[in-house]
Structures are given as C-alpha cells and as structure tokens.
C-alpha cells in the first residue's frame, strides 16, 4: 500500500513519491547545510561538494562524465533548452530543419511549434501501430540543413521504447546532434549514452522517486549550447540560478537508488504489467493493449476499453482510492484525445476509452489485483450506461478495435 493513505497509486508515469532514503539525503540541505555553492567559505563549499557528488551520481547512471551533466528545474526545461538553443545556434549556419516524432511529450512538441512560428521547419516522423519509429525513417528525413534529431526514449503514455542506439548511429554518421527525452526511461531501463550514441538526454527526478522541480540535461563534451537561462556562472556558466542544492542532492540519490535496483525492479514490474494486461484483456471483451507488447516500459499498462470514456473510469477508480490516467480529452479539457494514441492510428472514440496504469517500485501484486477487480466492475457498469456499447452489442455498430 502506498503512502498516500488508503490510496492505490498507479500513476507513476505522472509522478512518484520521494522515497524515504532520498528525502533523508535531502533533509540536511534545507535548514543546516544551506550555503550557496558559489560562496567560497566552508558552508558554501560544503554545498558545492554535495552538488558535485550528485553530478557524479547522475553521470555514473548514464555512463558519461560529471562535466557532461547540467542540472535544470525539470524535464521540460531540459527539452526546451537543448531544442531551442541548438536550433537558434545552428540557424546562423543556415540549418533550420529539425526532426522529431509525432508522439513526443508536449515539452518537445510545443518547443517545435514555437520554432516553427519563428520559421524553422520540423519533420514529425509518424509511428507504427505500436508507437515505433525506425532508424530508417530518421535516415530518410535527414537533410543537409538538419540541426537536430530528437526522439523520445520511451513514451509516457503507451510506454513504447524506441530503437535509440540505431537512431543515434544514423545521426552520428550524419554529424547531426541526437537528443532523446529520457524522462520516462531513466531509472526504468538501462541507459548508456556512449554505446547508444546519444549526444543529449533529458531527465527529471520526480519520475524515479526523486523530488519534483529538478532535472538534468546530459550534453556530450564539446557540444556548444547557448543558455536558456542567462545570469550567474552556475553549471559552468551554462544555466544560471542559485543551485537547488537539496533538489539536486535528491536527484543524485534517487538516480543512484533507481539504477542500483533497476534489474530487480524491471523484472518485478514486467511480471506485474503482463499479469494485469492478461487479466483485463481476457476477462473483458473489446479491450486492446496500446503500445508495443514487449518493447515497452516495465511499469506501463495502457488499454482501450471500447464503448466507454476514460474520465468516467478514472472517477470511479478514484472513488475506490485508485489513481490512474487516461488519454481521453475529457480528462484534460482539450478538444482531442491523446495525440500519442491518435498517432498510433487509434480512432478518436477508442482513444477516449483509454486507461493508463503505471506501477512504481513500491507497487504490489495485491494493489494490481485490487485495481483489476475494480475495473472488472467499473467497465461493465459504464458500458451498461453507454449507447455506443449498446450499439456494438446489438451489432448496430461495428467494433473499431483492431
């Protein structure tokens, strides 16, 4: 059972609790070791050492050097920084083309949209029904004026893991900077920036039991990148602002814990995941898995339940203390359902009926079973109210599931 009392929290892709170990690593840096790392006296240097220790922890987790790690305030900042600043820098050399995918997080897509407004050209690679892009697609999209390729490591909604090393190799051969938004991947799957040919990588602490409001950008040694936030000489002069020392310490501790437990955690969660998928797809009719069956985050379940809408499912789950997520527009107040689900070719009404369960290090089999039981009750109940489901049952309407 999770620490939000009486709650079964199955939305770890949205955010995770700070683990007790991480919080205890952070605690001294609020009221006691509160020095400014830029200060030369003892307490300042103590804070600086803590920041540098965290930098080494992040570097160790990614297989790079500490000098290649820059702390930011979140995954979104890391994405914005590398995309916008690279585009602006290379525009001077006439490179005004960027490549990404249709299923990126909004931090990437809206950065691209901002650049398009400025006159940049962006290629959005389509994905297959599983949410996959291929290195060949990237290869074909490359142009002489391509400034950057950014492809997310793992998708936050459907959990699909991309062929990062292959895409990185294509970019490396072309001499184009390759960035990956690994916000969902770090702490979940093993990453090595060198063997995977990654030039830049975004991560965010709160996705792996670290605190919210702190992230990092890995940037390959020697890669120029103008600042997004100018000012003081923090982060080797590349990202200004007094360091969030406690947050950075938390990020360092969290990534070290997550990486150490990675294999064990992945094994446990993969079993849990496949169990839940099997239970729900066999016990209920007209349910389909979204995302790839195996090239998938160990903690991600994303299902579409035909004939019903996601917000209602979430509310009925919430009433039982179960936290989940949906790609339905109704839960987000936007016109369209998830751009990710649509990009995989799902019709709108199926996308509206999607549900994401994302497990965490502390999730138990019992929690997963309670959630499944709840859905075995909730889905039929909502379907009984649904005119769409009625039409499918009576054959007036064909099923849209594939």
């Amino acid at each position, binding site marked *: 059972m999770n620490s939000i009392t009486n709650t079964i929290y199955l939305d770890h892709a949205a955010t995770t609790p700070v683990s007790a170990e991480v919080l205890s690593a952070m605690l001294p840096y609020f009221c006691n070791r509160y020095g400014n790392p830029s200060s030369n006296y003892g307490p300042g240097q103590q804070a600086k050492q803590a920041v540098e220790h965290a930098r080494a922890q992040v570097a160790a987790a990614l297989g790079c050097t500490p000098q290649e790690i820059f702390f930011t305030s979140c995954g979104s900042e890391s994405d914005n920084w590398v995309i916008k600043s690279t585009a602006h820098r290379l525009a001077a050399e006439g490179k005004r083309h960027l490549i990404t995918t249709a299923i990126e997080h909004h931090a990437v897509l809206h950065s691209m949209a901002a650049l398009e407004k400025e006159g940049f050209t962006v290629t959005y690679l389509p994905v297959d029904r599983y949410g996959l892009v291929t290195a060949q697609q990237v290869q074909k999209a490359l142009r002489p004026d391509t400034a950057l390729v950014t492809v997310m490591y793992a998708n936050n909604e459907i959990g699909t893991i991309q062929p990062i090393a292959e895409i990185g190799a294509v970019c490396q051969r072309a001499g184009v900077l390759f960035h990956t938004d690994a916000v969902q991947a770090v702490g979940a799957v093993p990453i090595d920036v060198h063997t995977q040919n990654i030039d830049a990588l975004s991560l965010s602490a709160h996705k792996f039991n670290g605190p919210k409001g702190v992230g990092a950008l890995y940037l390959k040694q020697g890669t120029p990148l103008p600042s997004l936030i100018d000012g003081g000489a923090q982060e080797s002069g590349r990202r200004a602002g007094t360091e969030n020392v406690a947050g950075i310490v938390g990020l360092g501790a969290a990534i070290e814990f997550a990486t150490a437990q990675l294999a064990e955690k992945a094994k446990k969660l993969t079993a849990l995941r496949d169990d839940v998928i099997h239970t729900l797809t066999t016990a209920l009719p007209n349910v389909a898995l979204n995302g790839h069956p195996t090239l998938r985050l160990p903690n991600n379940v994303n299902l579409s339940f035909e*004939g*019903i*809408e996601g*917000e*209602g499912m979430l*509310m*009925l789950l919430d*009433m039982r203390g179960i936290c989940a997520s949906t790609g*339905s*527009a*109704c*839960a987000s*107040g*936007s*016109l369209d*359902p998830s751009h990710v689900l649509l990009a995989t070719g799902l*019709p*709108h*009404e199926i996308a*509206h009926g999607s549900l994401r369960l994302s497990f965490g290090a502390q999730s138990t089999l019992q929690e997963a079973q309670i959630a499944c039981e709840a859905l075995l009750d909730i889905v039929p109940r909502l379907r*009984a*109210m*649904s*005119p*769409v*489901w*009625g039409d499918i049952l009576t054959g007036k309407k064909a099923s849209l599931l594939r």
Partner: protein
Amino acid sequence: MQYSAKVMDHFSNPRNVGELADANGVGEVGNPACGDIMKMYLRIENGVIEEVKFKTFGCGAAIATSSIATEMIKGKPIDEALRLSNKAVIEALDGLPPVKIHCSVLAEQAVKAAISDYYQRQGVDPLPIVGKLADPHACEGGCCTG
C-alpha cells in the same frame, strides 16, 4: 476535476439510466469521436413526459447532466421541458467546472432533440415549437470542449 457533491452523486448513482422500449421520442446528440454521446428516450402522453431514460457515453459531467436533466423533465409538460435551460442544469448540480459547462448544453440539446423526434413522429414540424437545434454531432459542441 473539482466536481460538486451533487455531480458526484448523479455520476455515481445516475437516475433513469436505460432505454425505453415504448419510447415515442428519442434524441441523440454528441459524437463518440468527441468523447461524448447522449441518448434520451421519452414516453410522452397527453403532452406530459410520463417516462424518461437515458444512455450516455462520456465523462462524469456528461453522465451527471444527463441524469439530472431526466429528473428535471420527468412528469413535466412538454412546454416546461422545453424551457429546461443549461443554466438550470448547472444550478441543479451546484455548479460545473468551467471546462465542463458545455455538458449542460448537451443535456439541454438532448432533451430538445428527443422532443423534436416526438413531434416529427406525430407528423408535426418541430421547428416552430422546439426551435433550431445546433449541429448535434459537431465536436465543438462536445461536452468537454465547450
């Protein structure tokens, strides 16, 4: 989403769910591609809505507004049901979150669509009585996106 207790009640215990085999007026508005569809069944006798049922595919507010709308028109004369405004639906639910306001319009439209259907079946042109209805299947009028 911050729903009132009233909304939560009508969502989790919706009144008058189902179909009416002997309905003489049926209206459907919304579009599953937009995330919501409301289907309203009426049995009208002597100008009074004797029985009403609904089926809704949609978010919590879609279900709650359908449910309360059926309660508000049940047993009422047609002309009173036609005066059911989305504002009245919102008030009866103790309010709706701003992004969900349009759900109440959808409920109002569903009632009007069912009454129009009733008149049509009676061979009466509903237009002068019910007025012109908005495109019942446009996403812009969707429940969550009004």
